[in-house]
């Protein structure tokens, strides 16, 4: 048993290092000068450490503003997604109504449609609303989230129906049942969904790229994409300093909540089968 454990640990560590390498290389290179990279692209440690890459990156683009934009958009997305999808999930799990099953299948089917199929008409429609180059284009349409409804429906179905019946006998209406009985009992589901929704919004790139124009409205990924070597003069030190500025806070957030994040993503993967 023992040698096998050691071999497995060795293999997993090697794989883990391969996963870490791009992150480590990003951090190290973000302190290098272009001259050093030209002299020896394989040199590990920055020599000298060029701390100025960070202020330079922050000067080149309005990162502080982008952080605030990304944060408040993601927070609103999470709040709207949790409330509306829990409501719909409650209706599907607990209320009998005509067409319930058909409607649920329609919900599931719409999940198959790639965002790119509807993006042109969506753009034209949002332009009619006057929402192009406005954060409304990123906040409101993402409310439609069949996956979230599906996930929470699973959680609500696991709540014993007797709890609700007891509340109803005590005179609680549908809304009170939903708000005071069901929601507190699906907290883990809401937490998991909240994290998934936050990450999806924070990392979203396709819609901001298409719907936003003004630099002061840009989200973090959108701003970061401006640094791509394909589009600007190549100063990899600066590019990677910008990447680090964009990535490190999310990495910290992930490390703090990693157990819950990983478990919820794994559960949502299993739940969908």
């Amino acid at each position, binding site marked *: 048993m023992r040698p096998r454990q050691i071999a497995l640990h060795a293999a997993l560590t090697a794989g883990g290092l391969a996963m870490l390498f791009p992150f480590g290389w*990003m951090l190290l290179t973000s302190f290098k000068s272009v001259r050093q990279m030209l002299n020896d692209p394989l040199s590990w440690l920055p020599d000298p450490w060029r701390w100025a890459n960070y202020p330079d990156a922050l000067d080149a683009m309005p990162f502080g503003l982008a952080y605030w934009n990304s944060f408040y958009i993601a927070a609103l997305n999470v709040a709207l997604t949790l409330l509306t999808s829990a409501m719909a999930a409650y209706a599907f799990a607990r209320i009998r109504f005509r067409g319930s099953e058909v409607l649920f299948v329609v919900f599931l089917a*719409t999940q198959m449609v790639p965002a790119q199929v509807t993006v042109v008409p969506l753009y034209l429609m949002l332009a009619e609303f006057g929402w192009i180059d406005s954060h409304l284009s990123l906040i409101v349409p993402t409310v439609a989230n069949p996956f979230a409804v599906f996930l929470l429906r699973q959680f609500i179905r696991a709540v014993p129906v007797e709890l609700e019946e007891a509340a109803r006998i005590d005179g609680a209406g549908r809304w009170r049942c939903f708000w005071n009985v069901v929601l507190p009992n699906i907290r883990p589901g809401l937490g998991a969904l909240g994290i998934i929704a936050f990450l999806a919004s924070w990392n979203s790139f396709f819609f901001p790229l298409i719907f936003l124009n003004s630099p002061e409205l840009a989200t973090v990924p959108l701003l970061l994409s401006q640094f791509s070597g394909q589009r600007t003069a190549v100063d990899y030190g600066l590019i990677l300093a910008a990447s680090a500025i964009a990535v490190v806070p999310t990495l910290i957030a992930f490390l703090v909540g990693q157990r819950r994040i990983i478990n919820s993503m794994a559960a949502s993967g299993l739940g969908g089968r």
Partner: protein
Amino acid sequence: MALLTRARPGRVRDRDGWWAAFFLAPQVVALAVFLVGPLCFAVVLAFMHWDGLGQKEWAGLANFAATLSDPQFGRAVWNTVKLALLTVPAGLGLALLIAIALNSVRGGGFYRVLYFLPVVTSSVAVALMWQIILAGDEFGVLNTSLERWFGIPAPDWLGDPDWVIVAIAAVTIWSSLGLNVVIFLAGLQTIPPQIVEAARMDGAGGLRIFRSVTLPLLSPTIFFSSVVAVISSFQAFDQIYVLVDPEYNEGARTIVYQVYELGFLDFQFGLSSAAALILLVLTLLVTLVQFAAQKRLVHYDS
């Protein structure tokens, strides 16, 4: 008990219909306005000539004919299929190996975090990190080391149209690996240890247990992940757009990029919608094939 049964939700049909409508309204309205509506509009647009400014003109099947006979679109379809073929089997296979290793090792939680890091990282940042590793110029870490240590001349991964899809596939596998690992790991942990124990008692070796116990019991999870993986590889955009601009490298042009370019760079809304619908049909076809194959390959416990 009789009282409880009478109070069961769903007895008063009329009132519950109204309550259902109330609870469903926000999601249903959002879905209708932002998903179903645009989908229907996309179908209409695909049969129109329209640049967003002038009159809409009925085009019949002209957009589909033009799209299907466009050699550039042909390349885009081929690149999309190639990307799926390169990422899905290799990515899922690798994830399965890692999940099995993690499942049979003590203290796997730490590795789980390592493998999961790229999943939570912005796709744009991932593309930028890999740009410097894969760069074909004197900055490229991979090629410089290949040449210096092994004397192998390597292709310009991001610049060479023949190799760029391979590079994109590698980055895609790297960034999505962790998600499949934790899903498979969760699936493996639902396999009752008694079954594995019983197989071992009957004299089955590690490989035999894998083939006859683990794989069948995990097959619903693998099937689900493969459907998701194919769909998301068909929709890949962010990393391709940042890693290599397909405008300058035809080898990276996928159907999704074609939809984006026709719609938002050329303002050919009809052509763009036609290409998008072809992507949708392709997605549905592949999913149907997967569901058909599932009947024969996937084991559901009865």
